[in-house]
């Protein structure tokens, strides 16, 4: 089967500013693909070109086998969109918003009621279908937008920062729905994010910075390439612990921040072995992953926060949003 998204040398310039400097990548059908980068890196510009919202300056992009410039309407029919900013009508009910979408996308009339119920149940909003959207919380609105983006059974769902501005609990709920989607729908998901913990849910991530793709790989591989997990344990007898770690696991540990600290490739899988084989009681364990900044820094040379507060960034961001 052909790639769900195929991009070759895609470029976008605004005057002298190159927002996207010729990117190449392919997304396989059924994949969850993430674009990771700071604001202003070109994520939204790229997604906007793929969604036919703006025309590329150069290069080609195909979505679902259709060219984004030459077959704009075909592409639009085959994609679902969830933007950073809400695009719901607050004065209409949830159901009215979805019905509007169904009509606009020409969903066959006889299929609408079943499909409507299905997508609303998927995001747990079926019982709120008759409420006006303006009474919804931010998380509910985002869920409704996801449901709406799925209503016409798109082949590719584009999510631009799907959880930005939401509280952690809602964020994880949204991710729950997205993960479930992968099993219930025959769909490819293309998303952008600047949260590393969210990029974990992707099959592959492209790190984008200053309009260029720096690296594309699975989250595990990316993290492994950056460094190992840091494990900290407390036992009450640090010296013996360090000695046992060396003897049994061939690990060099040291006392840092008052705890026995060492690095392993995948900390979470190591912890059960640690309990089984260390041979002494452990009071507490903590495993920390390489952070977004670690991964980002090793590929781009700056932290994501520095990249976001760099000079001229506000302007780049405005450009990147294509307004």
């Amino acid at each position: 089967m052909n790639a769900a998204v195929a991009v070759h040398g895609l470029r976008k310039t605004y005057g002298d500013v190159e927002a996207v400097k010729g990117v190449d990548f392919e997304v396989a059908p059924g994949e969850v693909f993430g674009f990771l980068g700071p604001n202003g890196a070109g994520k939204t510009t790229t997604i906007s070109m793929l969604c036919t919202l703006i025309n590329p300056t150069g290069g080609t992009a195909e979505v679902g086998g259709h060219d984004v410039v030459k077959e704009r309407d075909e592409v639009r029919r085959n994609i679902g969109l969830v933007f950073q900013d809400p695009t719901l009508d607050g004065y209409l009910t949830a159901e009215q918003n979805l019905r509007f979408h169904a009509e606009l996308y020409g969903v066959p009339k006889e299929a609408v009621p079943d499909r409507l119920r299905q997508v609303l149940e998927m995001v747990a909003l079926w019982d709120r279908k008759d409420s006006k959207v303006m009474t919804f919380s931010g998380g509910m609105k985002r869920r409704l937008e996801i449901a709406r983006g799925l209503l016409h059974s798109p082949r590719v769902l584009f999510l631009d920062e799907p959880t930005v501005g939401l509280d952690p609990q809602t964020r994880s709920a949204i991710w729950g729905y997205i993960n479930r989607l992968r099993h219930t729908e025959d769909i490819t998901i293309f998303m952008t994010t600047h949260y590393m913990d969210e990029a974990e849910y992707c099959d592959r991530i492209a790190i984008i910075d200053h309009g260029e793709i720096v690296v594309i790989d699975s989250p595990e591989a990316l993290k492994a390439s950056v460094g190992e997990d840091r494990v900290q344990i407390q036992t009450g007898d640090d010296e013996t612990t360090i000695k046992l770690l060396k003897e049994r696991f061939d690990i060099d540990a040291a006392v840092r921040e008052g705890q026995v600290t060492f690095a392993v490739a995948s900390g979470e899988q190591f912890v059960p072995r640690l309990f089984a084989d260390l041979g002494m009681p452990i009071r507490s364990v903590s495993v920390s992953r390489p952070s977004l900044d670690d991964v980002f820094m090793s590929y781009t040379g700056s932290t994501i926060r520095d990249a976001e507060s760099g000079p001229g960034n506000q302007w780049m961001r405005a450009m990147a949003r294509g307004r």
Partner: protein
Amino acid sequence: MTTDVVRVSVPRASGSHNLRAVKVVLHRELLRFVNDRTRMVSSLIQPVLWLFVMGTGLGSLVRASIPGIDFRTFMYPGMISMTVITTAMFSAGSIVWDREFGFLREMLVAPVSRSAIVVGKCLGGAVVASAQGVIILALAGLVGVPYSPALLLTLLAEMFLAAFTITAFGVMLSARMRNMQSFFGVMQMAIMPMIFLSGAMFPLANLPSWLHVLTTVNPLTYAVDPMRQAVFGHIAVPPQVDAMLNPGVTWFGHKLPIIAELGLVAAIGAVLLGVAIAQFRRSE
């Protein structure tokens, strides 16, 4: 989630698909109107004030010079136009609102032609404005206008046409507007002079020539005049009063027939609609 997934396949673009888009944009306009009682009431206040306060006050002043007719009867078609125009402009302005709140994007990224969306919006504005006009129609009896079905139907059709043209004008304006304040600013600037110069508030007979020219080039004049002629056709008015209050519009000494006036309004509406569609095609 083990339920069977309902797959829907979205058909290729076709006339009927675009027609559905027109209908749903129109339908949304109606839903919004029905849900928004405040707007319904607030756009009635102005014409009602004009009709019953200004009309009554001025009426007692001019009663001697227009024997046999209530001045409010004269103002009535003008106030219908005013209601329709304000409501239609509000509807068109909601595009700016939709842009600010993001909903416009939902419409613009859909696999339908932009013209379907613009046409739906203009029809929606026209229907909503006519509905609002119907409320004023209901007041006919209070100002001495008979509830004749023929008259009411004529007025309804004429106000629909006027509303469509005005909505198209508003949609064209809103294609480039980014916020509501500037839209309202421009709307006030355009609408107030147009209403003042349309014959909605004072008769267009015996005006100084500069004012006569201005009223003749004002497109709204051609929307108001047919309504006034319809009303005056259904009441008994002495000929000299009719000549004063209902002079019609003359071009180079010839009185323009109603059908020509309506044709002009429709033509302007069509042109504005075309420009509005072109603007939305170009944007984003």
